[in-house]
């Protein structure tokens, strides 16, 4: 052994929190990768069927017009991203905090506890964006064509990122509040209304003649994601101004993240 061969302590002198954060994120991406096809089926199947039935089958029967397909696809992409983010956080979290206790090893990593929650949100956004990227071409394949508007790409990306973040935030709130015995209740009383009041299958301004429903949809953050994605992809369809959408998304993202992290801390440290 030479004088230079000094053994440094393993843990000191390194930014442990950043390293731990990256390792935890890597764990989740690694696990997602292992089950990539399951993940794809999970996120893409339901929206695909919706797209197929509403835009293709009903069109063949003459019930909806050709234009409707181009209006529906952006909405379906928004829905996919939103739900993927929400489910990426909520369901695993409910299980990890109760039956499996899997999250404990990560809660004991050398990083502040709230960062473990933020990692979940980041993972959810990554997965949601991946699912949105997958949905566009598959949707185009189903429909035979897809709307495209190059100028709208920055808005498209911004709204998908923000919208997934909001979905993840709602997932965090649900994941830390709902006991495992109520998991099926989430589906019935929260997810379903969320899916159908989110202006994904219809533009918000088309509801002018149904005032009460328009008000209800205005309360759903998904509405603003759907409107923003349509503003980016099919700007000719009347929509809520993009800046309003982005502002509401940022606002609800902050709110749900705040409530979610509070719930997370309560579950992580008793």
């Amino acid at each position, binding site marked *: 052994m030479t004088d230079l061969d000094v053994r440094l302590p*393993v*843990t000191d002198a*390194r930014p*442990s*929190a950043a*390293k*731990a954060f990256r*390792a*935890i994120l*890597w*764990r989740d991406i690694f*696990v997602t990768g*292992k089950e990539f096809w399951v993940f794809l089926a999970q996120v893409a199947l339901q929206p695909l069927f919706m797209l197929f039935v509403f835009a293709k089958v009903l069109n063949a029967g003459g019930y909806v017009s050709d234009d409707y397909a181009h209006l529906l696809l952006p909405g379906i992409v928004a829905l996919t991203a939103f739900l993927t983010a929400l489910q990426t956080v909520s369901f695993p979290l409910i299980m990890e905090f109760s039956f*499996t*206790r*899997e999250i*404990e*090893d*990560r*809660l*004991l*990593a*050398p*990083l*502040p506890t709230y960062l473990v929650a933020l990692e979940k949100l980041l993972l959810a956004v990554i997965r949601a964006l991946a699912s949105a990227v997958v949905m566009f071409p598959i949707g185009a394949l189903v429909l035979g064509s897809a709307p495209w508007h190059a100028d709208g790409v920055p808005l498209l990306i911004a709204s998908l990122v923000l919208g997934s973040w909001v979905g993840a935030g709602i997932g965090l709130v649900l994941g830390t509040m709902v006991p495992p015995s109520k998991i099926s209740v989430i589906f019935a009383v929260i997810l379903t209304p969320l899916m159908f009041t989110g202006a994904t299958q219809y533009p918000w301004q088309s509801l002018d003649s149904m005032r009460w429903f328009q008000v209800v949809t205005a309360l759903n953050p998904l509405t603003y994601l759907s409107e923003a994605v349509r503003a980016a992809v099919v700007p000719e369809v009347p929509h809520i101004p993009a800046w309003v959408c982005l502002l509401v998304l940022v606002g609800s993202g902050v709110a749900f993240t705040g409530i979610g992290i509070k719930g997370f801390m309560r579950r*992580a*440290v*008793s």
Partner: protein
Amino acid sequence: MTPAVEVRDLVKRYPKRDVNAVDGLSFSVQPGEIFGLLGPNGAGKSTTIGVLTTRVKATSGEASVAGVDVIRDSVAARKLFAVVPQQTNLDRSLTPRQNLAFHAAYHGLSRADRNAKAAALLDEFGLADQADVKVDWYSGGMAQRLMIARAMMHEPKVLFLDEPTTGLDPQSRLFMWERVRDLRSRGVTVVLTTHDMDEAAEMADRVGIVDHGKLLALDTPEGLTRGLAGHAVLEVSVTPGDGDDPDKLIAALTDVVGVERGEAVAGGPIRLYLTTDPATVLAPVIAVLSGRSAALTNVHMGAASLEDVFIELTGRGLR
């Protein structure tokens, strides 16, 4: 020397509960010690471990691990300890080997380090053959071993084991004890909880008996059994000589220096409760017996067991 673990006036009351789960607990553990927390169900053992491992928020009081305040500086403390909880919390989306490797990654070890370490620990804990199967396939004993191996991945100074041998078969239990002693010889301080008296007596250098969140006694296992039950016990089976009767015999035996009290369990041996070491009393007792021409058929020396102490301190009530 900084204590490996220090707990002072620790109080924990869970929300919506009207009693304290931990109620003014104080103790400290020296580096290199194996310290046992012994107590009945619901005594507050896991809660104490929870506070020390930053998973339970203390209501008041102080707690530190290796000199780091776990309440104020929980992130720094997490590098210094590891914990094997009462219930399995292995990552079921990962293989056993990946469980170890990812744990090390969370703690900032390099890839080469974590792979080498994982291989070495899997080997040491007898899991090398089943390192790449599903964690779900593991038996309780294997999962327990894997959790200890995982805990050792980041070289903690203090290892907390919450009921490490509950539900293990005798082989696994012996293996576990061996590994724990091994850890101590490498300089790791071990704090374990148990309600198994034999285990506490066998493993721990010192034992703290807790109930209702309070420390009732704290000493070496020998100290506890000697001091608290007050008595070592000498059991002699005798056939009294002709014309002698057991009561007179007991009276004579009680006169021996060091014998406090004697009683005969109906038809059974005579139990002598001692104030000193049984070995020093044995010769005089035999002298008395042969003086009265009683035939000695069997002798049993024993300390009052830790179980006697435990029951004496915590009562017989179920909780």
